[in-house]
């Protein structure tokens, strides 16, 4: 299978703001050149203050998400407390490395808010965590989105600005990528709430 990461297509992006954080994803689920559905969920709420976005092979997106759900549920029951976003970010890295020689073909982005501070981490498929940047991308349209992010991003944006900027970056990136698009979803996480916005994009 050439390009197992390209088989289903799809892109994700995460961006830090001032006491807020946003993730966005496209909605396409394809099988190489065919588009199967235009409402595939790629961002999952792990906890009130933690979102997990996944790009890559869709079956692994689903399975890895289910694995993380199981981990956090067991953690909540065993430890009788919520998981911190930084802890979850480390858990994702451990879970990916556990499958070092038979990996999940996903590129995750963890977005969370810990004591008001935005937490953003991305990984390769075997758990190399990177949490130093203010925005991160994943998926087949990633590189195109990077370009748009570099142009539009500025630090300490408000939730409204952030929603606008991350939405624009996702859309312009996905427009270029043949395997991503067919709509977009933007999630903005603040101390008080999570807002979800569905974007209309070029339907190609």
């Amino acid at each position, binding site marked *: 299978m050439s390009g197992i990461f390209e088989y289903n297509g799809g892109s994700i992006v995460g961006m830090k703001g001032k006491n807020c954080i946003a993730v966005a994803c496209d909605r396409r689920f394809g099988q190489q050149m065919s588009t199967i559905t235009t409402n595939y969920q790629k961002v999952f709420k792990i906890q009130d203050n933690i979102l997990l976005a996944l790009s890559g092979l869709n079956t692994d997106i689903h399975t890895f998400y289910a694995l993380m759900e199981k981990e956090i549920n067991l953690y909540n029951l*065993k*430890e009788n407390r919520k998981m*911190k976003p*930084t*802890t979850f970010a*480390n*858990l994702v890295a*451990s879970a990916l490395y556990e499958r070092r020689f038979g990996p999940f073909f996903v590129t995750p982005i963890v977005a969370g808010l810990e004591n008001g501070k935005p937490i953003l981490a991305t990984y390769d498929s075997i758990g190399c965590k990177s949490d130093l940047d203010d925005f991160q991308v994943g998926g087949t349209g990633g590189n195109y989105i990077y370009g748009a992010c570099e142009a539009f991003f500025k630090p300490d944006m408000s939730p409204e600005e952030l929603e606008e900027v991350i939405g624009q970056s996702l859309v312009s990136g996905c427009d270029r990528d043949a395997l991503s698009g067919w709509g977009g979803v933007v999630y903005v996480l603040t101390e008080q709430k999570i807002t979800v916005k569905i974007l209309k994009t070029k339907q190609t």
Partner: protein
Amino acid sequence: MTDFALTTFSSKGKLLQIEYALNAVAKGDTAIGIKAKNGVVLVVEKKQSSILVEESSVQKIAPLTDNIAATYAGLGPDFRVLSQQARKLVKKYDLKYQEEMFVQTLSRELAEDVQIATQRGGIRPFGVSILIGGYDEEGPHLVQLDPSGAYYSWKATAIGKQAKNAKAFLEKRYNADMEIEDAINTALLTLKEGFEGQITPTNIEVGVIRDDHVFRILPPSQVKDYLEELE
């Protein structure tokens, strides 16, 4: 390894092996733990069988992490095995979550191993009660872990030879507003009450965790100062 369990129920519904393990604990050197508002103190008797024993080589309070330590009453080697197991549990947790393990979580996971020894084929229960003292994000904790695998959180407790008398003494002396310095004095006083012979800085061991979350074994010079204050 045998296939059949060594610890089985008596007709009265007791697990005699666990009762006997508790007997072994009750013969062991006394250990006392007190949880203060801002720390935990562990104090344990370190009676040597002969003056020829190299005192410094005996360590009865074992650090499990920077902020958690344990001591025991009962069979020394069993404690050694369990404290090493506890350290591995902490590291395993650390590798997975890269976060400090809570005292309660560690106690529960270690208790799992202790319970297995009361049910698995071919092995006997551990002959120690362990006192775990630690200071984590939730605050100070003192947990007792018994040979049955049961664990209890305490404000203050004692295990070993003088457990009964020591606990009675503690019930009178303990108050929830205790600061760590008061707790150290009270723990030493409690140990002194039932001590056979003269209590000295070298025949006891004192471990303290304060609100800086760092566990320290007090050097004999410091223990000497505390003991002198008791006079």
